[in-house]
């Protein structure tokens, strides 16, 4: 039985995602560096997590019972910061300080200074292990919070990911749900050509995870997968979300160069107008 969002929720999510995408483009342009492609591909997942699912709020940023989120693909920091700003954890104007001297908004997320960032990440392959630790702590303390982690597809090439995969299944961390942002591209080209992590779902199944494959831009599919994961006992869930790198800005979509490049001012204006054209 699929679980669907209400029309009101769908409208809200589309608006949130559009706002987050606009801020990603603006902040990376202002920073003159950063990673827009993999931020835009993950935006819809982030929108559903933060605006339809996770128990998080700025006034209880350190609450012991809050849900946790670990951005294992830490280079997508712009989507995390923009989402946290959208949620009220950060002032929106602060987003334009990304990557600048004295800013809290480091190029890759740093947990000490930003409420809402649950783990410092950026060096690929490390976030899922930390998510494991948080999920294990919940079991030890009999708390019912859930832990979410977002991984890149290229990141699956890191060996530590598979150490973490074994651990989560071995200790039956059914309070852990992870996503692979399967946009198919990494810095040097298509993942299948650089060092293929394919087939992705079968690998996670073989490691003992419950695996769901969805369209990572379909709000209902994302929401339904999250709900399904919550009903699975004794297994962590991996949601393999098929996404488009640069999603929402047609000039960026599926173009590998936009992995880690900032738009010029002119491109920024164009991209913002393209995003404006998307129906809420």
């Amino acid at each position, binding site marked *: 039985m699929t679980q669907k969002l209400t029309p009101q929720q769908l409208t809200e999510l589309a608006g949130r995602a559009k706002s987050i995408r606009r801020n990603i483009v603006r902040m990376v342009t202002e920073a003159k560096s950063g990673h827009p492609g993999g931020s835009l591909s993950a935006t819809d997942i982030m929108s559903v997590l933060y605006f339809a699912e996770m128990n998080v709020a700025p006034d209880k940023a350190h609450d*012991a019972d809050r849900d*946790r989120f*670990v951005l294992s693909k830490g280079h997508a920091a712009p989507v995390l910061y923009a989402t946290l700003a959208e949620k009220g954890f950060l002032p929106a104007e602060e987003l334009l300080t990304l990557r600048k001297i004295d800013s809290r908004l480091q190029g890759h997320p*740093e*947990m*000490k200074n930003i409420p809402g960032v*649950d*783990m*410092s990440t*950026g*060096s690929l*392959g*490390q*976030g*899922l*292990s*930390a*998510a*494991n*630790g*948080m*999920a*294990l*702590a*919940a079991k*030890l*303390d009999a708390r019912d919070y859930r832990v979410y982690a977002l991984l890149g597809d290229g990141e699956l090439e890191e*060996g*530590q990911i598979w*150490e*973490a995969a*074994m*651990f989560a299944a*071995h*200790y039956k961390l059914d309070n852990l749900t992870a996503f692979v942002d399967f946009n198919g591209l990494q810095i040097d080209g298509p993942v299948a050509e650089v060092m293929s992590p394919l087939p992705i779902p079968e690998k996670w199944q073989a490691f003992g995870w419950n695996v769901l494959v969805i369209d990572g831009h379909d709000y209902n599919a994302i929401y339904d997968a999250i709900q399904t994961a919550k009903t699975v006992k004794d297994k962590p869930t991996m949601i393999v979300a098929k996404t488009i790198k640069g999603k929402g800005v047609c000039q960026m979509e599926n173009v590998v160069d936009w992995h880690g490049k900032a738009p010029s001012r002119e491109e920024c204006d164009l991209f913002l107008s393209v995003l404006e054209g998307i129906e809420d």
Partner: protein
Amino acid sequence: MGNQLATREAYGLALKDLGDRNKNVVVLDADLSKSTKTNVFAKAHPDRFFNVGIAEQNMMGVAAGLAAAGKIPFVSTFAMFATGRAFEQVRNSICYPQLNVKIAATHAGLTVGEDGASHQSIEDIAIMRVVPNMTVIVPADAIETKQAIDFAAAHKGPVYIRLGRAAVPNVFGEAYEFRIGKAALLTDGTDVTIIACGVMVAPARHAAEALISQGISARVLDMASIKPIDKEAIIAAARETGAIVTCEEHSIIGGLGSAVAEVVVEHAPVPLERVGVMDTFGESGTPGDLLKKYNLTEEAIVAAAKKAVSRKKA
């Protein structure tokens, strides 16, 4: 002085006691719990012990996550794997976010023995003390180990504790009080100061006794707290005795000798000699044979002290 216990054995007992008192303590090990002695904790507190398998990188990350959720994780494996294999996880997942993880690494140095160079960590002090936010402790005996473990549990932030495989004599009495950032004065003297850590503390003491008959009065400091280091004690040693010898079961590059030299050169330059592993790998052998072959002995300390004193007069 008569009691012989490896610091890893003392660690196992101290950790179990700590677990009895503090329910927040959680222990992780990477398939070496019988060797690291975390099995003592595991037996007493099976619900708070997690074997991660032979996967040290994930172990450090899991510890980071546990600490982020309020636990006090102690992670153990051999020093080689804790600091070498998982270096970047220790740096980026633990030290950068300043998470409350305690790394108690055993089988450090040449006294691993027969396993040989692949398992003999002679670089770990260097690569742990260079990371910001890390505290580094190298206990000399069972008594200091217990206190270091209790300190680590009470301290907020990452701590690296270097432990050994081989039995060592007690250098401290039960009344000893370990203080972070403070050296312990074992013997006072006026001509040279011998600063040692870990298994080299006992031979340092014997060297000081041997030096008396040769007309040299040596001060001996136990410098278990490598980071933060006791600058005051080092500066006082330089000014009051005029020469320094460092002794460690570690490369002469980057470890205790380097840490002391940094302070001496900046604040009170005096002749300084380093006893340690001379930028070379170890090999298989008994701990005793290895210490002898690689000049980590009372005799080597005596020779270094005499050399330092003679340089003072030059």
